[in-house]
């Protein structure tokens, strides 16, 4: 029931806004629908906490600690993003960068995008998971090109082609998985149901599964943004509207990583050696290092934070690759805090670039003077994302680094160099934007900074104290990821 609600509300929202998305009250409606989704997700979460994992609708959907936590996170960030998008999109309209027809597309697609992400997370059918994931690409590709500028079109085209091709590989992987499962579970719908696959995972054919994992890793990994499959990511983040960058970075990447981790769990059951873990660690490490060195070359503020997302997805992938209760816990925590922090950063970045009229970091100066909240938001957010305690990003990095030092000491020099370079790059660019003499103008609509500080407050809290129920939640999910 709650599942239907979680999926139904955004779908209804998409329909509603497809009809009325150009009205004056559309931004509010968007926020209300997202709030509805959040409430539904909260109900779902409450039920999982009370009753434990369950499946529904002929086992096509299921909820366990792993995905319910992502559902809650997704619904929450999707909601706060609508709060941010309200003044942001109005300002964009005010600046004549968008017209009402585009806004209708935007609002409708935003809801549909939320829907596809939630569908990906909740789907028990590995095939449907693929379908929903491709759906997420389709819904966002038009949002990336919303401004219809040459750059945005180029970005959207690359996003579309690369992700579609990538995800086609994941379909091949899914077919191979089905092929292996069919032998154990018999033909038909059950052989693609994750809950069933999980139960028989040790009986699945290892050769096939290792091949399947390669295809799925390349496929979903493209969406995660793992180097060298990441090339679409900075373009799409930089050229789309900022709320979309926020949800892409904060949510979509998580969802894609979720798919990778789900595949990994199955493969680990079938294979003796830590095949999938090794691959993920390799890709994770490569992404971290590559992204770090890219960071220092950036001029566009959103592009820079997009690379930072690649870096952090690399850290998570590395953490999940290492496996074990601590690393998996760290990976999950990092998903949470990265999602919250990065979206908060994009909120402030959005307002900052509107206030200065550009995304060029060389022209954004002295935010703290024009608007202390934007300035502090950006400064604290950046410091948080760079792993400065007492923010929660540090917590997970602490666990990842210490575990790595214990189990894979060879990897730590790379991490050390990458984190250092990333720090120099991002902080060196953020500091002059925040401090100094200002170039910012007053915004026509007061910026929505409540979401920023709510996100940062949660991240701060997670750095100092993780509530017990959240710990249980992470632990159960981590135990299951292994």
């Amino acid at each position: 029931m709650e599942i239907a609600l979680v999926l139904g509300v955004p779908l209804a929202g998409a329909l509603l806004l497809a009809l009325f998305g150009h009205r004056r009250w559309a931004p509010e409606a968007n926020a209300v629908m997202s709030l509805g989704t959040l409430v539904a997700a909260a109900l779902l979460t409450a039920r999982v906490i009370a009753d434990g994992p369950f499946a529904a609708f002929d086992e096509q959907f299921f909820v366990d600690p792993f995905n319910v936590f992502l559902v809650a996170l997704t619904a929450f960030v999707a909601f706060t993003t609508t709060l941010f998008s309200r003044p942001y999109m109005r300002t964009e309209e005010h600046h004549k960068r968008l017209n009402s027809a585009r806004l209708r597309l935007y609002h409708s697609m935003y809801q549909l995008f939320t829907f596809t992400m939630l569908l990906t997370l909740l789907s028990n059918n590995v095939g449907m998971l693929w379908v929903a994931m491709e759906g997420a690409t389709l819904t966002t590709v038009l949002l990336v090109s919303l401004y219809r500028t040459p750059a945005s079109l180029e970005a959207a085209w690359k996003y579309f082609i690369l992700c579609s091709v990538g995800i086609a590989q994941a379909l091949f992987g899914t077919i191979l998985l089905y092929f292996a499962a069919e032998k154990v579970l018999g033909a038909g719908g059950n052989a693609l149901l994750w809950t069933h696959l999980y139960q028989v995972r040790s009986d699945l054919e290892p050769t096939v599964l290792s091949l399947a994992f390669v295809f799925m890793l390349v496929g979903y990994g493209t969406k995660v943004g793992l180097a060298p499959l990441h090339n679409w990511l900075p373009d799409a983040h930089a050229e789309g509207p900022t709320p979309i960058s926020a949800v892409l970075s904060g949510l979509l990447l998580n969802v894609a990583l979720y798919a990778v981790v789900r595949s990994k769990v199955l493969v680990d059951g079938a294979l003796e050696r830590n095949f999938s873990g090794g691959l993920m660690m390799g890709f994770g490490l490569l992404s971290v290092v590559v992204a770090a060195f890219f960071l220092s070359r950036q001029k566009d503020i959103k592009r820079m934070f997009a690379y930072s997302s690649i870096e952090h997805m690399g850290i998570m992938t590395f953490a999940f690759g290492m496996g074990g209760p601590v690393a998996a816990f760290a990976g999950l925590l990092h998903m949470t805090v990265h999602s919250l922090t990065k979206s908060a950063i994009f909120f402030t970045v959005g307002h900052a670039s509107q206030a200065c009229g550009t995304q060029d970091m060389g022209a954004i100066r002295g935010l703290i003077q024009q608007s202390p909240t934007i300035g502090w938001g950006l400064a604290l957010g950046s410091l948080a994302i760079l792993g400065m305690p007492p923010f929660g990003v540090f917590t997970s990095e602490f666990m990842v680094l210490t575990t790595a030092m214990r189990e894979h000491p060879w990897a730590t020099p790379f991490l050390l160099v990458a984190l250092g370079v990333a720090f120099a790059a991002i902080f060196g660019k953020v500091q002059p934007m925040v401090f100094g003499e200002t170039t910012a103008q007053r915004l026509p609509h007061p910026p929505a900074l409540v979401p920023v500080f709510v996100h940062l407050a949660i991240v701060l809290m997670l750095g100092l104290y993780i509530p017990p129920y959240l710990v249980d939640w992470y632990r159960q999910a981590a135990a299951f990821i292994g």
Partner: protein
Amino acid sequence: MDSPSLLAASLAASIAWLAIGLLGLIPARESALARRVLFPLGALAGLALAAFGAQAAWLPSASLVLPLGLPDLPFHLRLDPLAGFFLLLLGSVSAGVSVYAAGYFRSESAGRLGLICLQYHVFLASMAFVILADDAYLFMVAWETMALSSYFLVTTDHRLPAIRSAGFLYLMIAHLGALAILLAFGVMHGGEGDYSFDALRAANLSPFWATVAFLLAFFGFGAKAGMIPLHAWLPEAHPAAPSPVSALMSGVMIKTAIYGMVRVTYDLIGGVRWEWGMLVLVVGAGTTLFGVLYALVQHDLKRLLAYHSVENIGIILLGLGMSMVFFGFGHPAAGALGLIAALYHTFNHAVFKGLLFLGAGSILHSTGIRDLNAMGGLIRKMPIVAFYFLVGALAISALPPLNGFVSEWLMFQTALQAPLLENGVVRSLIPLFAATLALAGALTAMCFVKVYGIAFLGQPRERHGAPPAAAEHAGTDAGPMERLGLAWLAAGCFVLGLFPASMLLTLNRVGASLTGSGLSDEALESSWLWLVPTEPAKASYSPIIFLLVVVAVVLITIRLVRLVYHGRVRVADPWDCGFPEQTTRMQDTADAFGQAIGRVFGPIYLTKRHLPAAEDAAPKYSLRIEDRHWHWVYLPVARLTEFLSEKVAWLQRGRISTYLLYSFLTLIGLLVFVR
């Protein structure tokens, strides 16, 4: 109080700091709240903390676990003698600085002062938590919070580009160091994911991993302490910060790095090796000499003081290094002496460097200048500051009977234990480090003659024809709160200098609790008047008697002179060998004072000199001395990073076919790998 309640009280004092900081955010129309109430309250909390710490040094250790932090690793707190000693340092120095700050920030607007108040007290509290932390996570959180809050304090005047870049450099190096420390904790792990210090202590490391852990920790803490070549942030950040903050950073914050080094090396890793000690000694000697030599050629007062902090960190490292060598070779009594000397110097430096930075702050506040070349004759405008500054200057120059001398004396005594060592090479090297220390001490004296002579004595200097800035602006001496802060720290210089025996006993207890061995019984039995590191026949020093005799002799002299002398005095213009037309521009400048040293130690400096030509209509002489480490370490690293990032950018050439090719090749590569 017993030790658990002391720990709880210390925790309460630290939390009080946090609370005071938050109170600063209360919107106020005037800055009076923060100035009149909050900063003095912070000083009281500091005093309380110092009292708790002093008691804790004599009690068994106590621990506490807070229900915060990681699920597997809640916040552990522990108050043992070492932590007690550093709390004493933090509390007592910060008390003086807070009182001073209450007077110093008088011209800030309310909003800004509120923010400063928050950052300042968070900074203090985080230092307290660094000292109290008993697990890797809380330690790191407090450590980085300390860096972060001090970064914001450094960039208080963020409109100046130089201050921004100083802040950036500071936080950058601090963060790199923190990562190294984090990895050091990672190496020291004891069991699955348990990073409480108890677990780290229990962990049994192989010599290789113990050395890796030590090197990482040494790098990480060294970055914060300001040892070469990681010191570059220090002379940039300390001048940039408001003076009370500089005093805290130089006085206390870099000492937390010493705390970390001692904690990790002696306590957590344990089993100190003499090779580590040699490394520390070599780095320490380099840091000492380099710091003082660069200090000598500075003309920005706060920058000069910052380079002296580098030097003093080097001196502390020399003490630590000698201690480690002695422990490594199995001479615990001499090792304990070295540790005591290092810790004593840590405290001393905190007190006199705090005092000097506050004095510099008063000058800056009163005259608006930091450039020594523009100062002069301040002793007449601000006699009280001049007096306290003199105390600080004499103390840092290691002149008896003030406190700087005591710790250097202890260092020399440690070095004189060298004949105990069996290894011939090490044995003959230790005296070399003592020679370094002696040289540095004499150079420091030279430098402070320069500082004091140029800033406070003589006449106000003209600068490029403009009216003497110092004379024009300097109207006022420090206000009452500022005076109180200065007096507190100056008193500290005297107390630590005149009553070293009780401090020695306290530190002996600290060392014994860490290493299980202390000084010989003979050393401990001597009375409070005498400082006896080994046995009375070998070495002793009694500052009180020393001072009394000096004072007595001077008084007798004055009395005797009075007997024969009639007492007539005439005041006249200076004679100056009979040269006519004296102007104030003919006085020595700071640059001139450093120039001789620049010549003697030429190759150490990167000197850029511009000499005017003979027929130049408007002759101009300029001299810029740069830190060679920029060219040796920092710029190559920056260039390497840039080079690599250029190469990496090649991945992203904008062509979609290439991107598809990457995916394709990745896929094919992995498939080949799987087969």
